[in-house]
């Protein structure tokens, strides 16, 4: 019987179990996770603070998932080292696990830049796990002034989650616009106005120079008084375990189209990896939940002796703030379509005759039709691109496509 070990109990790890079980019903699966609770979508934690979900609803594949799939789970357990030649994983409990196939799903860790006087801040934390969300739930009251460093996905979702719980929420970012990693200035300004209207104070192009207890001295000379500090400046792939095992990590753990690493019998999936980005035509850290799920499953299938390829990877994100939906996908190459109003915008990017990326704010209906154009690398000269740019439906894709997709099993 084959022995599988999975390090990490988030989406990639759980999907890896599904992948293995789709091929091998009998193998022995052990999953190691540092968290006390696993099998939940990390992006849910802001919705948890907002009261849109709770711990009974957060289980991604159901509370009985591990039991149904006959997985031995070691919660609150850290994998400390991997012996790639000996095929063993050492745990902080002192135990050693032997494997025939190993999947590293170590995810990412929040980055923490150096700030002068940071240690004097009254309450400081990250916001990436349910434990982090629970810490805020316990600490933040209607009197609490919250300062969040970082106006990316994590920082702004944290701001939304805390708005109704806290006295005030201020978000600062060195970049001159919100979500600078995935939005352009037009779409960001729609978001910024919406956030301001909903009671989130944004300090952009500005960051903390030094902390003095509950006072943040900003770069522009302003001071911000706070009780709780959330550091949300981004995450970095967790590659240390793989590197210590003798693997060479770049920004992430490099994997091929089968999620195989350079070390024997070791696969990797999820936020810790660097994999082929179809929209860019080069490897990248994709680090979004849907990719973790697809990668985990693919790795699992291959670990169990099946054959599955992951070749449609791209960054994509769907996010809402106080009712404003924003979606983005792929790589922003040449702007080929642009539409901006007070409350919404659409930007489409293409290169070499195929769509490579898009940004939508406001009207996001049927956005997946654009995502499919990127994923399928549909030649834009074979469809009515002008019509689909204005309104994503199946009409501009032609009758043959519709007959195949609406008239047959897909």
């Amino acid at each position: 019987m084959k022995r599988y070990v999975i390090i990490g109990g988030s989406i990639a790890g759980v999907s890896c179990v599904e992948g293995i079980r789709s091929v091998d019903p009998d193998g022995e699966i052990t999953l190691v996770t540092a968290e006390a609770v696993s099998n939940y979508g990390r992006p849910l934690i802001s919705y948890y603070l907002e009261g849109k979900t709770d711990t009974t609803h957060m289980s991604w594949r159901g509370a009985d998932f591990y039991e149904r799939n006959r997985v031995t789970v070691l919660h609150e357990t850290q994998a400390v080292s991997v012996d790639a030649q000996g095929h063993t994983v050492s745990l902080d409990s002192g135990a050693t696990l032997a494997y025939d196939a190993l999947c590293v799903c170590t995810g990412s860790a929040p980055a923490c830049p150096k700030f002068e006087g940071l240690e004097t801040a009254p309450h400081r934390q990250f916001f990436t796990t349910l434990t982090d969300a629970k810490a805020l739930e316990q600490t933040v009251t209607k009197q609490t002034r919250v300062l969040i460093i970082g106006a990316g996905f994590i920082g702004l979702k944290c701001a939304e989650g805390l708005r109704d719980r806290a006295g005030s929420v201020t978000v600062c970012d060195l970049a001159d616009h919100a979500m600078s990693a995935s939005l352009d200035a037009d779409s960001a300004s729609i978001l910024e106005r919406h956030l301001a209207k909903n009671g989130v104070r944004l300090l952009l192009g500005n960051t903390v120079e030094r902390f003095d207890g509950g006072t943040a001295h900003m770069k522009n000379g302003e001071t911000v008084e706070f009780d709780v500090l959330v550091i949300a400046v981004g995450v970095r792939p967790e590659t240390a375990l793989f590197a210590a095992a003798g693997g060479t990590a770049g920004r992430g753990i490099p994997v091929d189209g089968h999620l195989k690493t350079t070390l024997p019998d070791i696969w990797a999936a999820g936020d810790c990896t660097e994999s082929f980005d179809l929209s860019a035509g080069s490897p990248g850290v994709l680090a979004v939940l849907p990719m973790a799920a697809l990668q985990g499953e693919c790795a699992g299938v291959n670990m169990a002796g099946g054959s599955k390829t992951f070749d449609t990877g791209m960054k994509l994100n769907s996010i809402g703030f106080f009712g404003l939906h924003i979606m983005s996908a792929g790589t922003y190459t040449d702007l080929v379509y642009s539409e901006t109003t007070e409350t919404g915008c659409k930007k489409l990017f293409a290169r070499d005759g195929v769509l490579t990326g898009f940004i939508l704010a406001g009207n996001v209906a049927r956005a997946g039709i654009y995502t499919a154009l990127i994923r399928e690398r549909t030649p834009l000269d074979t469809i009515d691109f002008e019509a689909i740019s204005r309104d994503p439906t199946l009409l501009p894709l032609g009758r043959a496509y519709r007959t195949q997709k609406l008239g047959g099993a897909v």
Partner: protein
Amino acid sequence: MKRVYVNEQWCLGCHLCEYNCAFANSGARDMVEALKGRPIFPRIRVEGADAVTYAVSCRHCADPLCVKGCISGALHLENGAVCIDRDKCVGCLTCVLLCPYGAVQPGPDGAAMKCELCLHNSCGAPACAAGCPNGAIVYEERGETA
């Protein structure tokens, strides 16, 4: 498995499927009471212009991207049908971003909404197909592709 299929050449563009869908999923006993004067939220939608019309609803893909990418785990498979636990859904609309057919949309409460083949309502089989006046929408087995 049986799915909803669309024969585009027979679609009259009458939108009756949208009304039958909204009614079937309303839980109401009376169609007029359920739909008259209210915004409707059908899970099937007629697209197209005068000469070409067709209805789009969930394809219940064999390898559904929406289920894989759902951040809450609300979307799931039930014997091959893609279903949604709307209590788990947080309304992030990642499914809208992933569905290649534009077949998922937010409902009135913000949570995502999609065709579940009327398996969870009192119809038991798709109301869109049952009520299509021209046989453009059918519920049948058409074989699986790889």
